[in-house]
């Protein structure tokens, strides 16, 4: 069941991503992108990362892509919907991309994950796979732990254990990201405000 689902989601995600690449129309690209991102969210679910998957759907599929579509709408005035890449570029990028894919695949395959896991167990103890902070077997229970981690407490690591020092939380990054988002929003708003200063002929 899991394998089948994975196969479906993986295939869809990869195919949509490929479609994004190959598509020339920006609107279609946006559509395929939504597909791809959605499928990835499915993969997250398969990986027991329910909160992340949800966030993926909400923010990515529901927010970011909408944003992109707005961008398309704001800019794509007729002829610019389709800006064709040259086939040469495509081939060049394809080759390079293929090589890169091969490299990454090679790297991934090089690692003996089983041995690695054994090694890690030996270092951190056999309890490494225990998930004291959330329900290990039930899906969709990571939310509480994640919220605590973002606030600085690592239930997933420290709960029920004796540690001289508590494990590192993500409170500070969280705050930074908050401010960051605020700044970005203001900056985006500033950048995007409409002003026509330059005549089009200048870029001819």
């Amino acid at each position, binding site marked *: 069941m899991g394998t089948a689902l994975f196969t479906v989601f993986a295939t869809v995600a990869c195919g949509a991503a490929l479609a994004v690449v190959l598509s020339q129309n920006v609107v279609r690209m946006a559509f395929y992108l939504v597909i791809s991102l959605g499928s990835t969210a499915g993969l997250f679910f398969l990986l027991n990362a329910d909160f992340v998957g949800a966030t993926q759907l909400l923010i990515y599929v529901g927010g970011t892509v909408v944003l992109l579509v707005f961008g398309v709408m704001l800019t794509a005035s007729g002829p610019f919907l389709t800006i064709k890449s040259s086939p040469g570029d495509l081939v060049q*990028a394809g080759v390079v991309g293929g090589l890169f894919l091969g490299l990454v695949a090679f790297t991934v395959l*090089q690692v003996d994950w089983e041995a690695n896991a054994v090694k890690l167990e030996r270092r951190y103890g056999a309890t490494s796979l225990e998930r004291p902070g959330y329900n290990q077997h039930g899906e969709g229970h990571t939310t509480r732990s994640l919220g605590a981690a973002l606030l600085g407490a690592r239930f997933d690591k420290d709960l029920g254990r004796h540690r001289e020092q508590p494990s590192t939380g993500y409170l500070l990054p969280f705050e930074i990201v908050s401010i960051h988002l605020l700044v970005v929003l203001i900056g985006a708003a500033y950048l995007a405000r409409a002003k026509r200063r330059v005549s089009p002929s200048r870029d001819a």
Partner: protein
Amino acid sequence: MCGETAVKPRFTHMPLEQYIYTGTVLKWLLGLAWLLPLVGFAIEIFGGAWGKRLDPVAGGRKLRLAGYLAVFCIGTGFLLSLTALVVWKGGTGVALMPTAEAVSHGDHAAPDGGEHGSDDHAVDHGEHAGHDGSGDKPQQATEGDARGQSPAAEAHGHGEADAHQEGGGHEAHANDPYAAAFSGTYYELARFGNLRLTIDYYIDGLTVLMFCMVTLIATCIHIFAIGYMSDELTEDYEDHFVHLSGGRHFHRPGRFYRFFAFMSLFCFSMLGLVIAGNIFQVFVFWELVGICSYLLIGFYVERHSASTAANKAFIMNRVGDFGFLIGLMILWTYFGTFQFANVSPAGSPDAANGPGLFQMVRDSRGDLQVEETADEQVVMLQGSGSADDTSSPRSIPYWLLVAAGVGIFGGCIGKSAQFPLQPWLPDAMEGPTPVSALVHSATMVAAGVYLAGRFYPMFTPEVLLVIAYVGCITLFIGATIAIVATDIKRVLAYSTISQLGYMMLALGVGGWAAGIYHLITHAFFKSLMFLCSGSVIHGCHHEQEMTRMGGLYKKMPITCGAMLVGVVAISGLAFWIPLAGLTGLSGFYSKDAIVASSLAFMAGNPNHFLLFLVPLVTAGITAFYMFRLWFMTFAGQPRDQHVYDHAHESPRVMTTPLIILSVFAVGCAWFGVLENWILTSEPAHVAAGLTSAYHVLLTMPSHHAIHAMHHTAGTAALIAAVTGALLSAVFYWKGLVDPESVRKPFAGVHHFLVEKWEFDNLYDVMFVRPVHVVASWCTAFDKYVLDGILHLLSRLTVATSAWDRKFDETVVDGLVNLLGNTTYGVGRSLQVVQTGRLRQYVMFIVVGVLGLFVLLIMFFPRA
């Protein structure tokens, strides 16, 4: 230093006190006579210049004082010289008057051989002081001290000469020239260890004789010059020989005082030359007479010909002096002294100065001591001149002695205008006539002969042969040119050259006394003739061409007569006078002696027959051209009426000296006094002659041999002279043959003679022009090569600095720029990558990551 040397302690025939006394008196008498003209010179030159400035108007009259002062100086000098003669004669006990027996020998008035009956050196010892005139007592000579022979003894001995001639086996005794000599130092110029440069005196018979002769003649000439130069007394002298660019004649103030100043300076120099006790001093005064001659020849400084002639005279003399210098260097190096001879007896102040040249080179018999060393012949020197190496007897290589002799004789060649340096003398006639009379006939040019005679002991037979031949060539050249010369003074000048040649010849062939004899007689009659010519020139208003004269005997009888005396004297004519036998004027005797010497020489050396034939023939030529001169000037008809009309006899101030000189020209050789006098100074080795020499087979005639030839030679010379005189009369008096008709077939020869044997042209081509060429080469070398190198260097430096600049600009700056440019260029080249194209950047990133991974995998393989 000298006391223990090989030279024996000297002693003269007079006691030490007498030597010192007489020597001191002579030293100061002659020294005063010598220095007086210098004082005169100083007063004349400064007084003249100042007097003229102070009083330009009346200056002319006062300037005459300069002439009187000069006459006073030289006249006093003459009186002092006479006094010196008396002192010398009294002090040394020399007898000048021959015995009555000798006088009766009219055919040759002077007893010249000193033969004695005995086979030994029968000499009169010097110790017998006070034997004046009676030193004829033969005495046994001890070995080595053959000195102090009184010439009177010879005179006496001569009477018996003929009787002993056949006896054979007897040899002529040696005269001791040091016996009647005094030497010492006036003044030391400089001294370096044992090397001394000094002003010395060497007073012997010859010195005294020369002093008397020079001062006497100079006095006469000075007196004459007062008259002759009187036209210089004006403030506005017009020189007709100088044409200015405007065509006018040259006007200048008279230079009376300057003339006499130079004359006085000359007298000083000449007397210094005569009194000189060393060869260096001779050189000093040699140069000084040369410069006086220069000044006097160039007296008319505005005449180009005069200044050129003066230059020529001085430079040609310098050529001779070059030889002189070489001689000096050799002598100085090997002898370490310049002194002729140091005759001061032990105990006198100058005795410590060591032996002189003559004493070193010749032993007490007057012989050279030649030794064979491994590779050369050397002459051993007697005594030692240097304290450095008294241990070993010093010697001089024989050939160097010859070289030294030839070198010194080179100076004589220049000064006495001998071949090949004779051309300056005729040109020297540019000077005023009294100058020609004094400087260029009687004294200075004779100084060469004097020096050759004085330096005689240093001459080896080879040198004598050179002297003889030089004299022989010269006398012939001079005589031949004189035949064709028409300028009255030039004729006399060539005649002077010729006569000087005779003197040299005489010295060269061993007739020492004959040469000096002729020097004295010639001085009298030649200065007489010059003064006569001066009188003529003065009377004819500076006309010197004989072709415009003639018949002047009526206008100027005294001059004419005096000139005739001179002409007869120089021609060597003699007359049969009933009571006295064959009697000639002074020249007859001296020339007779010369011809006899050369004949004797030829008898000993048949190869050198020219040395007899040439002078004999030239004796005839001499008579010819001298009579030609007289006939053309005084006899016959006037050739130029204008000149004749204005001619007049000279005033008494000029004729009186003529008469005085005439007297001496006639009679100075009579009674044998002169020859005796000369013989007192004859070098020791002359009398005996020499049978073989070291390098050339030469025989020098002894007195004996010469005497044997006397009659033959005298007769031959007389015949030649008479022939010449008659021939001259035929041509120029009686006009029986027109000279032109003879000249025509010999036009080439005539031209050659008129051109003075082409010497001037030859020298011009051979020396003058090459010198100028070399001079210009030197300048060009400096200008183009040395300066060229310098400029090249400077240009190179500039170029180098330019390169340096370039180097800086290109290489050094270039490197820096290259660095910048390369960086820039790399940047530029990377610019290509910086396309600004976003997509490409992405590609780069990917490729870069790929590359990094590949590198990581390759170089950091998994452990």
